[in-house]
């Protein structure tokens, strides 16, 4: 797969003595047509990363390429082939949606007739068909986000950078936004780099997710790979039910296994946290103690917990 976005040791620090390291040695690749989710808490460095990728900020060190263009030396080339929904974003309140979009369109080499058509088409696409000639000043947060997406698409970009595309909009609107983004990727092969605060929000549409915290990229992979990573590090939590033996006794036997970290007896059965590969051994120990396993389930960790574990909260 062709690489559309790549960074190598990308770093940005602020302050007089560069004491605030907003992005720390970031190295990642995003392939063509991929939807990449960039997830991290407030101040993690998501926006700073995006700004460097579209040439709004110069990196302190490291390098990067977007669509094959250098992020320091070929900024204008990058902007010609990318669309960006920045955060925060503002438009011209005194102009209508159509006038606003037309203005951005004029910044590209597009025939006037095509431009006018595209303006209307895009506003309809993002669900603003009813507000084409309304002043932007009267738009709600959700409408502004939609407009932001239209604005990012005016040059038919092959790469989209979306900084928190769903923040501040209602659940239905957020769902529509996600659908729009995944349709764009599917139908037009657009590569998408989007940021968010929440894993659960991006898992639905993202092919891969990068987790960033305090400027460092902590983990990259598909949702399942990230889950595995947490399991690898922290063990898996299991729910175990045994017949023919008192739960207390089973617990005692299990605690002696090195790969089992904790055992807890409750009404529902025995909860234990163990290494990922310890399943067989656990079943074996129960059997040897004279019990029969009636239920043995690995608990599926919910994504937000995966995220919190990853960022070490």
């Amino acid at each position, binding site marked *: 797969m062709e690489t559309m976005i790549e960074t190598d040791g990308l770093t940005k620090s602020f302050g007089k003595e560069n004491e605030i390291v907003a992005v720390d040695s970031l190295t990642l690749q995003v392939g063509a047509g991929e939807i990449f989710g960039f997830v991290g808490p407030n101040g993690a460095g998501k926006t700073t990363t995006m*700004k460097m990728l*579209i040439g*709004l*900020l110069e990196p302190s060190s490291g390098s990067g390429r977007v669509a094959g263009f250098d992020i320091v030396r070929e900024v*204008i080339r990058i*902007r*010609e082939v*990318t*669309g*960006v929904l*920045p955060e*925060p*974003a*503002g*438009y*011209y*309140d*005194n102009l209508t949606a159509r006038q606003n979009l037309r*203005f*951005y369109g*004029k*910044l*590209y*080499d597009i025939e006037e007739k095509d431009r006018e058509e595209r303006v209307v088409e895009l506003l309809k696409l993002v669900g603003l068909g009813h507000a084409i000639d309304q002043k932007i000043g009267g738009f709600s947060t959700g409408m502004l986000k939609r407009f*932001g997406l239209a*604005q*990012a698409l005016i*040059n038919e970009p092959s790469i989209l*950078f979306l900084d928190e595309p769903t923040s501040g909009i209602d659940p239905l609107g957020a769902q529509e936004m996600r659908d729009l983004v995944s349709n764009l990727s599917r139908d037009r092969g657009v590569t998408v780099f989007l940021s968010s605060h929440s894993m659960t929000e991006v898992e639905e549409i993202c092919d891969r997710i990068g987790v960033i915290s305090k400027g460092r990229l902590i983990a990259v992979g598909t949702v399942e790979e990230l889950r595995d990573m947490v399991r690898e590090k922290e063990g898996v939590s299991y729910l175990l039910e045994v017949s023919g033996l008192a739960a207390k006794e089973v617990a005692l036997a299990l605690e002696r296994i090195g790969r089992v970290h904790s055992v807890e007896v409750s009404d529902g059965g025995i909860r234990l946290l163990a290494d990922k590969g310890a399943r067989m051994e656990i079943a074996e120990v129960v059997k040897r103690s004279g019990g029969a396993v009636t239920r043995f389930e690995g608990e599926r960790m919910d994504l937000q917990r995966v995220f919190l574990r990853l960022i070490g909260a």
Partner: protein
Amino acid sequence: MKQNINNIFTIAQKEFADNVWSPRFAVLMFIFLGISFSYTYKIKFGSSFIDAVQTIAIFAPAIGIALGFDAVVKERRRNSLNVLLTHPVFRDNIITGKILGAMMTLALVVFLVIAVITGTSLIISGKLANFSELSRLFIFGILTFLYLLVFLSIGIFTSVITKSEINSLTCGIIAWLNLCVVFGATVMIIATVVTGYSLFDMDDNQQFRELTYDLQKLSPIHHYAEASIGVSDLSMGSIINQETIKGVLDTSYTLGEWAGEFWENVVVLAVISIVLIILSYLIFLRQDITR
């Protein structure tokens, strides 16, 4: 390159339209054209043309400030600069476009003012200006444009260096009041304090007068007043030194003679604007505008 020029025009065009259609601009123009009309009209009743020029000299700079003060700061504060910069435009295209758009508006202002003044004179005297007067009027228009451009540049400059529109406007208004309105009075006070003489020491105020005229050179209003009607100041309460050539509209001298006498004033006006604009450029290009 072609796209760059295109972008500059796109931005300039938008700036021009924004200005012209803004209620603020309409109100200012309405008031100002009204004043120009009434002053010119009063000429009929013995008032001199100098009054009409004085109105321009004192009040029109407010329009210059109004056109410039929010040019950059507003876009930055409303985060529209954040969006604009994600499109393929260079920063210098943005500021160039803005300055150009504001200058276009200013040209329109000057044109309207001159049109009102000539129109009114026409109504009063009932005759069309002859060709030589038209060309003089044209030069007067350019002078007025250059003069107001200084204030537009001040507005642009404060819009680049300040963090909010209100700060920028405050700086602009302070500059305007000091340079155009109370300037003459301030100069007089300084001259009095420094020399110990005053205007009322009839016999021995040579030193006082010389210092006054020197100090007057510090304000754009002096250079405008000199070149347009041949007086050394037009701000309120100022002491005036009358030149032999009464400015560009004085038909008893040729335009060549006028230029020989006043070219320095014209150059000074242009240089002030150029310096301010260059400074605005340099600061804007180095600014972290994404925050």
